[in-house]
């Protein structure tokens, strides 16, 4: 479909949009049309978000195919046989290398898939298709809780897993509210450290085609879409656009406040509660339930870590701590000399 578009217009959509951006021709576009849609985001745009207008998606799967093509070079090529994991009863290899064609769920070889929901709402039937992939949270628990810094949120809003650092412990999958990252065993750093005793491969998920964004091009799923379902741009512009679109269609928004805010915002003509009930859910098939900010407690505790040393200083000056400390200075308090770390 993308090729057909190229032939018909004589210039690719991507090239056209890029030209608009580079040449400043975007200024010629009526002011009512936001810059969000018309240009490829630049690094100076800061945190980027995507808007998915679910009323437009026809479920053709072009985005899924484009995602696979664009990211094929990043897909794992595992070494077999896999290490015998210890303990065998608890640690098991996960292998998708012989099922690379699976496209009805997330796998290490399929970072985007389509969910379908057939629902009745206010007397009308709806057939809604939902492209699902990483939500690229604003404060991603997968990155915050990764013990090795393998998962990181970049300044442009992309949360990316480094395949050269990931040990495949799948902690990111467990702490992700949607359990998005998927593991492939037999590949990655763990093979060079303690392959039987720690780690179990590499986790894979959407990285929003960072290699294309870095070149000023659109992510593959966006440029390939024949219906312009997705839009990418600076988050504040995308949020404004999503709200306007929801108001226009009397619709609903998902992803704006989920997990404290994500950079993937869905707008649907039917409530997400209905969509969540209707879609097929399970391993590699994320839900669409409301999600609280899973990092909220840590954010509050950060204040405690800031106040603790101030409390210590205050205690030191105000007497309480000093009195307690002085009690032991006379030499009456003894210690075995082996209890300090």
């Amino acid at each position, binding site marked *: 479909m993308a090729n057909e578009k190229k032939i018909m217009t004589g210039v690719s959509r991507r090239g056209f949009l890029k030209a608009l951006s580079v040449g400043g021709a975007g200024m010629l576009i009526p002011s009512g049309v936001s810059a969000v849609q018309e240009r490829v985001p630049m690094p100076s745009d800061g945190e980027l978000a995507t808007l998915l207008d679910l009323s437009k998606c026809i479920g053709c799967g072009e985005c899924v195919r484009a995602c696979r093509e664009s990211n094929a070079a990043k897909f794992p090529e595992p070494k077999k046989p896999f290490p015998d994991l210890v303990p065998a009863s608890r640690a098991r290899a996960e292998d998708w290398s012989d099922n690379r064609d699976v496209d009805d769920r997330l796998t290490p070889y399929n970072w985007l898939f389509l969910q379908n929901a057939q629902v009745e709402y206010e007397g009308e039937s709806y057939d809604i298709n939902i492209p699902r992939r990483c939500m690229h949270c604003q404060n991603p628990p997968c990155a915050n809780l990764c013990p090795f810094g393998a998962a990181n949120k970049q300044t442009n809003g992309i949360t990316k897993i480094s395949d050269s650092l990931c040990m495949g412990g799948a902690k990111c999958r467990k702490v992700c509210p949607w359990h998005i990252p998927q593991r492939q065993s037999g590949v990655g750093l763990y093979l060079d450290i303690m392959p039987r005793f720690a780690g179990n491969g590499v986790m894979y998920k959407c990285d929003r085609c960072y290699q294309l964004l870095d070149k000023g091009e659109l992510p593959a799923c966006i440029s390939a879409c024949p219906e312009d379902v997705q839009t990418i741009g600076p988050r504040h512009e995308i949020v404004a656009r999503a709200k306007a679109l929801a108001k226009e269609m009397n619709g609903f928004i998902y992803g704006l406040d989920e997990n404290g805010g994500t950079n993937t915002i869905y707008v649907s003509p039917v409530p997400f509660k209905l969509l969540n009930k209707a879609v097929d859910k399970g391993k590699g098939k994320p839900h669409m339930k409301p999600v609280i900010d899973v990092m909220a407690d840590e954010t509050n505790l950060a204040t405690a870590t800031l106040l603790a040393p101030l409390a210590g200083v205050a205690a030191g000056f105000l007497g309480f701590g000093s009195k307690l400390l*002085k009690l032991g200075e006379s030499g009456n308090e*003894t210690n075995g000399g082996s209890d300090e770390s």
Partner: protein
Amino acid sequence: MKVRPYPAWITRLYVFAMAALAATGMMQMPLTKRYFISDIPGMAWTSDFFLVHKVHYLLAALLLFVIALVAVHWFRYWYERLVLTPMGMARVVILGGLVVSGCLRVYRNLPDVSLDPSIILAIEWVHLVLTMVMGGVALAALLMKCSAYAKRG
């Protein structure tokens, strides 16, 4: 039995905070379930990554309180009477690195904070490596029977 020029309770509180921080830090790696530690009665919480993370934060707050209290007392009262031992000096330097990298770790986890991935990686690994170095130096101090941080000057 050696007599220390500072009270035992502060030593015990410090040792508790450091040991518990080391333990909850290790538990950031997803290994407790794999190795049945979370199956031990009373240890199920170790496989709850969010809970372990929050406990780590609370212990860090406790450690920062102790450090600040002792630092104030050092500069007000102990400065002229006590001197750091060589092993004490080494651990104070490492502790400083752990505190700085830990605080940066907390900062990085705040909403609306986006750092360059190479900076995040540096913070993570400095914290991890310094923890291991601290463990090694503390073990060496114990074996060499010179674990006191300070002695009378």
